[in-house]
Each structure stands twice: as structure tokens, then as C-alpha cells.
């Protein structure tokens, strides 16, 4: 009798003992399936270093905002204004670097001060507008849907007035480094960054285990822990290797050498390595994950999403929390605006159009529940990557653009249905 009853829990016990995140595995599986299918259909082009590099830098802007959208949705709110916010931040930065600083303040074009000042302006504008949204929602209790729907209409067109509807280019040379292809670490520094990231990952795994052991809590078998650590390190270094394998085109190399007054040596080649924009995304991902799991602010975000009344009764200032969450969302929109406008090397009025929907879809595909209280940062980033892979994969295969949108829309609905089934089956919130 005892033997029989032990049998079924054991199987489930193995998964629980390894503490595997089934949702994470499912999403990585979906991403791999999509990548392999497109790779087959494009004769190996989809998984070429060049395409992986492009895919990554195309995903960064939406992925950065999606991490903020997780917090917004977890607190039972929504932000429809992120695309418009990105546009106004981009417009302010374009005017700052191309008109105001060189004109009114008399800084020379190409002055090293322009890029940092521009970045500060973009981040400040985003944070301020976000905080104002949060104040309208938290303190004046206007529904988030309405406040940000208003913002959706207001901010893009405020940017339009600011730039008189013109597309602004060229942008500052240093500023363009944030865009992706123009600013990369190069092979050596990419390896160093990859090793540093690996060490951080190993340290995180090790210190979590040590803390559990110190409190005499159950831990995973050492072998499983080592295997997970190995997978993490292999993934990081593999990613670096792929980006390093994408060689800088000859013409561009020659120009880089000429800029330093040198001649391109014969047979010289160099890989791109990690783009700065991807480094920014990695930093955002790590920071936001830490905030979500290891800070009071993050704990209060999830508590408020789970039960707003209980959070209030526990002494949490949920109104101020709303202001902070939306201010953070605004800050991330500013950050995305830097990456997006630098990648496009200009500011145009339509920058970030439909991004609000892509960002919400990324968060939702990544397992963030619109009912509030649950969602993960890595899920949102993977969600953004899945959507971008689908879009650009279909583009490479030659699927018509209307059909591309139809497919992405269907995937969104399907992903949420799968997530609902997962929650039912595993009893996860």
C-alpha cells in the first residue's frame, strides 16, 4: 500500500526537487521550435550569426519596455501610452542633440557632452510623464486604461508639434552607439563580459544554495544544481560566440580604420560582439529581476496585485506604489527611446507606433496575468523575442505583411490559452 501511494508523488517530486520552472522551459522550447522551423525554411539563414545579431538588436527596445509592463500589469493596471511616450522621449532627445544644444547652448556638433545630456533629457522626460500618469491613476483614481489611452493620443502628437512634424537626422555620433550595429564591444571585451556574466550567474546560484543550507532548508541535488549552472554558462558564452562570429563588413572596417588615420591591414577581420543596446537590456533584465524578487518595492508590487486591500491593510502605501511603478515604466520608455532612435539613426513621428501593443503582448505571452499578481521579467523578454522571431522569420520566408500580423495575433491568443491550461494543471498562480 505504502509503495503504491509513493509511486505517483515521486514523479512529480522529481520535477519539484529540481525546482524546474515549467513555464520557462515551455517558452524556451517554443522559441527553439520557431527558430528551427524558420532555419529549415530559410536554408540556414535564420540562425546565421548575422540574423541572430539583427534579431537581438530589433528586440531590445520592446523587451526593455516589456519588463516595466510586467510591473504595471501585475499591479492590475495597463499602460497604453508606452509607444507614444517613446515617441515624445525620442522627439525631445532629437531636438536636444540636433537643435537646442548646438543652437541655444552653443555646443559644437560632435561635442562629447551632447550624448550624455541627451540621454539625461530622454530618461527625465519619460520618468516625469510616467510619474504623472501614476499620480493620475493612484491619487486621482482615474482608471489606468483611460489615463494611458489619453496619453496614447497626447504624447506622440506633442512630439509632432515639438519637431514640427519633421524627421530629425543626423543624430549625434556618440548617441548612435546605443543603437546596436554601430556600437559593439568587439570580440575580446565581449568574451570578458560573457565571463563576467557567467561568474555573476554562478555566484547567484551558489549563494542561494549556501543560504538555504545555512537555514537547513531542502536543496536540489548537487548534480542538478551543477547541471543548471552549466546550462546557464553555456547559454551565455554560446550567445557571445555567435555575436562574435558575425564579422564586421569590410567596407565598414576600412572606414573605422580610416577614422583613426590607419589603413586596413590585408586579411584583417573582426567580429561585432555584444552590442551596447543588448548590454543595456541585460542590465535592465538583471536589475528588474532583482527588484521583483529581492526588494520590498517588488514584494509590494506583487502583494498589491494579489490583494490590494490586504496590501493597504499591511501598511503599504499603494497610491505611492502606483506612482513609482508608472515612473519606472516611463523611465524604461525613455531608455527604449534611446535605443530605438539610435538604431533608426533618426527621429520620425511614427517611431514606436504600435509598440504599446507589442509590449503588452510580450508581457502576456511571457505569462503575465492581466488579473494581476503574477508575471516574470524573463518571461516578458522571451515573449518579446518570440514575437520578433515570428515577425522577422515570416519576413525572411516571404509571408505577406498582413498575414504576419494575423499570425502574431493568433499566437498571442494561443499563448494565453496555453498559459491558462498550465495554471490549471500545475496550480500555479
Amino acid at each position, binding site marked *: 500500500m505504502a509503495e503504491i501511494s509513493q509511486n505517483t508523488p515521486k514523479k512529480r517530486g522529481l520535477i519539484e526537487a529540481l525546482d524546474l520552472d515549467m513555464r520557462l522551459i515551455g517558452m524556451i522550447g517554443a522559441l527553439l521550435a520557431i527558430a528551427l522551423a524558420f532555419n529549415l525554411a530559410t536554408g540556414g539563414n535564420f540562425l546565421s550569426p548575422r540574423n541572430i545579431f539583427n534579431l537581438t538588436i530589433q528586440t531590445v527596445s520592446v523587451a526593455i519596455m516589456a519588463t516595466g509592463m510586467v510591473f504595471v500589469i501585475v499591479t492590475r493596471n495597463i499602460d497604453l501610452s508606452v509607444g507614444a511616450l517613446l515617441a515624445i522621449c525620442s522627439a525631445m532627445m532629437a531636438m536636444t542633440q540636433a537643435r537646442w544644444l548646438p543652437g541655444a547652448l552653443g555646443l559644437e556638433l560632435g561635442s562629447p557632452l551632447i550624448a550624455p545630456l541627451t540621454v539625461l533629457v530622454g530618461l527625465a522626460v519619460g520618468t516625469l510623464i510616467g510619474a504623472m500618469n501614476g499620480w493620475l491613476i493612484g491619487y486621482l483614481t482615474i482608471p489606468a486604461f483611460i489615463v494611458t489611452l489619453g496619453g496614447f493620443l497626447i504624447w506622440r502628437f506633442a512630439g509632432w508639434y515639438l519637431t514640427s512634424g519633421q524627421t530629425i537626422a543626423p543624430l549625434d555620433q556618440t548617441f548612435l552607439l546605443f543603437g546596436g550595429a554601430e556600437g559593439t564591444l568587439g570580440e575580446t571585451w565581449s568574451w570578458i563580459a560573457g565571463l563576467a556574466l557567467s561568474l555573476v550567474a554562478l555566484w547567484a546560484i551558489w549563494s542561494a544554495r549556501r543560504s538555504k543550507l545555512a537555514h537547513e532548508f531542502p536543496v536540489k541535488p548537487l548534480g542538478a544544481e551543477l547541471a543548471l549552472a552549466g546550462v546557464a554558462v553555456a547559454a551565455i558564452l554560446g550567445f557571445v560566440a555567435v555575436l562574435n562570429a558575425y564579422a564586421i563588413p569590410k567596407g565598414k572596417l576600412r572606414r573605422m580604420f580610416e577614422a583613426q588615420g590607419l589603413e586596413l591591414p590585408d586579411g584583417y577581420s573582426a567580429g561585432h560582439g555584444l552590442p551596447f543596446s543588448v548590454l543595456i537590456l541585460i542590465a535592465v533584465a538583471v536589475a528588474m529581476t532583482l527588484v521583483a524578487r529581492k*526588494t*520590498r518595492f517588488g514584494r509590494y508590487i*506583487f502583494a498589491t496585485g494579489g490583494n490590494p486591500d490586504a496590501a493597504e491593510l499591511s501598511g503599504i502605501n499603494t497610491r505611492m506604489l502606483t506612482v513609482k511603478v508608472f515612473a519606472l515604466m516611463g523611465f524604461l520608455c525613455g531608455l527604449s527611446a534611446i535605443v530605438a532612435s539610435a538604431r533608426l539613426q533618426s527621429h520620425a513621428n511614427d517611431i514606436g507606433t504600435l509598440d504599446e501593443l507589442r509590449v503588452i503582448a510580450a508581457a502576456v505571452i511571457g505569462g503575465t496575468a492581466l488579473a494581476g499578481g503574477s508575471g516574470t521579467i524573463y518571461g516578458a523578454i522571451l515573449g518579446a523575442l518570440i514575437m520578433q522571431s515570428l515577425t522577422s522569420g515570416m519576413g525572411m520566408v516571404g509571408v505577406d505583411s498582413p498575414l504576419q500580423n494575423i499570425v502574431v495575433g493568433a499566437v498571442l491568443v494561443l499563448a494565453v490559452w496555453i498559459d491558462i491550461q498550465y495554471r490549471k494543471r500545475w496550480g500555479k498562480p
Partner: protein
Amino acid sequence: MTTPLVEMRDISIAFGGVHAVDHVSVDLFPGEVVGLLGHNGAGKSTLIKILSGAYRADSGQILIDGKPVEIHNPRDARACKIETIYQTLALADNLDAASNLFLGRELVTPLGFVDDDAMEAETRKIMARLNPNFRKFSVPVSALSGGQRQSVAIARAVYFDARILIMDEPTAALGPHETQMVAELIEQLKAQGIGIFLISHDIHDVMKLCDRASVMKNGKLVGTVKVADVTDDDLLGMIILGKPPTRAA
């Protein structure tokens, strides 16, 4: 005569013209259990939410150890060592037991990050005392039974050395065995000198657990009686008729 632990003097609060609590005064001594009785809508929960900081009184005064205090929000109440077990339990269902127990008062590492392992260790300690059968420390509280959820809410109230405990219908959702555990806990806490307000509409609970009972009807205080001096019927009369019993008056 000793100073009361809590005195709520002449408390009033109105919601849009309805006098939910109308010039009510109650008090509580250390090591005493005072029952608050009344029909649904009599104002007992509202009165107690003023003490726990969920509402602010329009007028009246709260004294703790004879000194006036201002309680504007739940944080103020906690600072006065007032803890509340709400009828709804007020748990964040998506968080685990330890996160709920320490919600708003997280233990942090020297770097300022929340220390989940330390909080879980503390939760295990207090649960070993309150509900030794409790095992589910790493699942969200939505996965717990009613009794287990109740014990998380109780643990949260007693962990932080409360001096004044408010229990709003603590046994309403519990089976007989768990009700007995709550009764034993109340005896333990009394012995430690903690004062308890017990909100209930079950007269038998009040007769069994309380030293005194204050009865409310339509926002007004009907009267406060020593439980030993009255019968079930006397209390029932106070609740239904809104008149103090003639014998005990």
C-alpha cells in the same frame, strides 16, 4: 483601578449621511477579552477598523495606556502594537506564507534586499508553535486550506509582539477542531497579558471566550456587561431589542 490598555472614547464615523458608528465608547484591559456583538451592519467591524487604522473616525479619541494616540493608517496602528486578524484574513493569495507574515515588515539583508530564507525560518518557528501540522511553506497561500490560511493570518498578528489583538470573526470559516485551537490560543494570549477585542455574532463563542461583552445596534452602543453576570438570553435581548438587561444594568 488600573489604566485600560485601550480606551475608545465617543467615537463617531459617518459614510454619506449614514452614522455607522455613533458616539460609541469601549475599553479593554490587559489580559482581557472583550466581545463585540451585534447584527450585521450594527457597526462593530467599522468601530474596530478605526482602531486598526483602516478608517479614520470623524470625531472621538483613542487612548492607549491612558495616553491619546493618533491612528491615521494601518502603519500607525502597528506602531501602537495593535494587530488585526480580519474576517477576510487580508492575505495576498499569490505570495507564500512567509511573505504574507512579514508583508510590510520584511526582514532585509545588510544590503537592503529582502531575506526570504530568514523570513521562512522565522515562519517555520512560529508555525511549529501555532499549527504544528503546517508544512506548505513554499507555495502561495491560495493553495492552502481555510484553516491553514487562518493560521497564517494569526501568526502574522501574534509574531510581532502585539499588545492589543483584534479578531474579526476568527472562527467563522473554521471546523470544530480548528475553532478549539483558536480558543486555546486566546487563552494563551490572555495569560501573556494581551488584550483582545473579539468580534462575533455567535453568542456562545462570546459567552465561552470573553470576560466582558459590548453590544452594538444601528451604530450605537447598547451597553457593556460582564459575561459572568448575564445569560445567553440577556445578550440576545440586547442584540435584538437594543436594551440593556434590567438585572445587570
